[in-house]
């Protein structure tokens, strides 16, 4: 299979089965994510959205099919630098925010490890995600849920990744904060134009952030359809209140309902 152009993602006929009982989790997913594109995956709980994302990250191997990320080879998605934001922020509780930020630079075989960024680069990323300088000395339990998520995002983008994978990063934050974090994410995407894949069960979130929304059916996850969002970046809060947003929400709901998937 040809590698996708530059830092895109190519998913071709990917199926994943649980090794224990051969149960199908996702079936025959094919998807191309262009470089700089923001694609969301929505679908009911248990449809394999996160499984798909973990396969893209190289944390799981597809049972069938191929995934090529950036200029990586078959089933070796780590050909591109990947930033991953986990649902629970995945911070080491015994490390300070700063120590959590530099953790990825301490990991991996010596020959492939990146050098730790300069202090000014780290502070710039911290500022960019909306954290304060003094927060870097705090441990995760001293930070609020939103701050922990911002820290997790900072850690992901500090790698200077070509690809950003977001696994329901805003699922655990309250509604007001979620809207604010969505706008921050939208701004970040506009600035950096990272190839991004977001898994979410919030339709509004998917529409607000994405260029395309891919809809999966219930277990096993199959592609039901996709929705193109042509609104230009950076997305602003006015977009949420626009007629287009309501129309897109209705279209997305229809795809889910027509495909038999329940939200």
């Amino acid at each position, binding site marked *: 299979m040809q590698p996708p152009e530059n830092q895109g993602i190519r998913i071709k006929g990917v199926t994943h089965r649980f090794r224990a009982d051969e149960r199908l989790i996702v079936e025959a997913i094919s998807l191309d994510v262009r470089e700089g594109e923001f694609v969301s995956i929505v679908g009911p709980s248990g449809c394999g959205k996160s499984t798909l994302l973990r396969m893209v990250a190289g944390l799981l191997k597809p049972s069938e099919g191929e995934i090529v990320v950036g200029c990586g080879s078959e089933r070796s998605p780590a050909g591109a630098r990947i930033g*991953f934001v986990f649902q629970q922020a995945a911070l080491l*509780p015994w490390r300070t925010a700063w120590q959590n930020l530099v*953790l990825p630079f301490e990991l991996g075989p010596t020959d*492939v490890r990146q050098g730790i960024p300069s202090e000014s680069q780290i502070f710039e990323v911290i500022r960019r995600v909306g954290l304060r300088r003094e927060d870097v000395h705090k441990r995760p339990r001293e930070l609020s849920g939103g701050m922990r998520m911002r820290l997790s995002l900072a850690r992901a983008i500090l790698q200077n990744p070509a690809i950003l994978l977001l696994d329901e990063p805003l699922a655990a934050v309250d509604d007001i904060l979620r809207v604010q974090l969505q706008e921050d994410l939208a701004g970040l995407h506009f600035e950096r134009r990272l190839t991004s894949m977001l898994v979410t069960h919030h339709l509004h979130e998917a529409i607000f952030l994405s260029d395309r929304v891919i809809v999966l059916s219930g277990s096993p996850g199959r592609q039901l359809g996709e929705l193109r969002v042509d609104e230009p970046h950076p997305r602003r809060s006015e977009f949420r209140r626009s007629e287009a947003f309501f129309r897109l929400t209705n279209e997305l709901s229809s795809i889910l309902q027509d495909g038999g998937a329940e939200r």
Partner: protein
Amino acid sequence: MTFVRLYLRQWVAPILFFAGFLFLWESMIRIFEIPRVVLPSPAAIGSALIRMRHELVLGLMRTLSASMSGLFASTTIGILTACVFSQSRLIRVTLYPYAVLLQTIPIVAIAPIILVSLGRGFFSIALIACLICLFPVITNTTTGLMQVDPELLDLFRLYRATRWQVLTRLQIPTAMPYLISGIRIAAGASIVGAIVGEFFVGSSQPGLGAIIQQKDTFTLPDLYAAVFVSALLGTSMFGVISVLGEFVLRRWFGMSLIQQK
């Protein structure tokens, strides 16, 4: 240090209970005129404690050094074993039954064998203490090493962490509260181990175990005094390890055992 105050506060009620218990005990002895050979009074035990203080302090030091050596050895061996166990399911499944076996063989049965094989000295007593401590350290630490958050494990895999990096930067810090709990249990057990060992060693350099063994019904208050010191030593070891463990957890790992209760 707030947590030291917290621990001290935890001890207030048990100490008051003990004082009440002693008062009741002394009253019963006086009211019912229970003979000394059946049950000595707390006052008699107290005077035995004062009379035997030199002997008891020396015994205590010997027991303490043997049990501390055993505890140190068991902690080292236990952590290393748990690290090996955590690396492979096959190793764990193959060797874990032997760790259980070690725990189920009565220590009073092993002690004489060790003393016959290795001699009636300090080393044998420390080894008996070590054996009795090993199981809680191994099981607790192994459990802790296996409790790693799957998301964190994914994070480490994403950044291509080596096995060593996963062990040292993720598994061992995760296991710290479990390890400290294990050492805390082992600390009390190590005193029991050392005393059992001393029981069989005899009187050349008597630790608390040998002192207990030498006493009989005619010196019942002395026996109670030695038992009391042994219990006090075990409890103190438990307390000291609790406070030290809490300090280490709070200072370097941002965790606490107190909050988990």
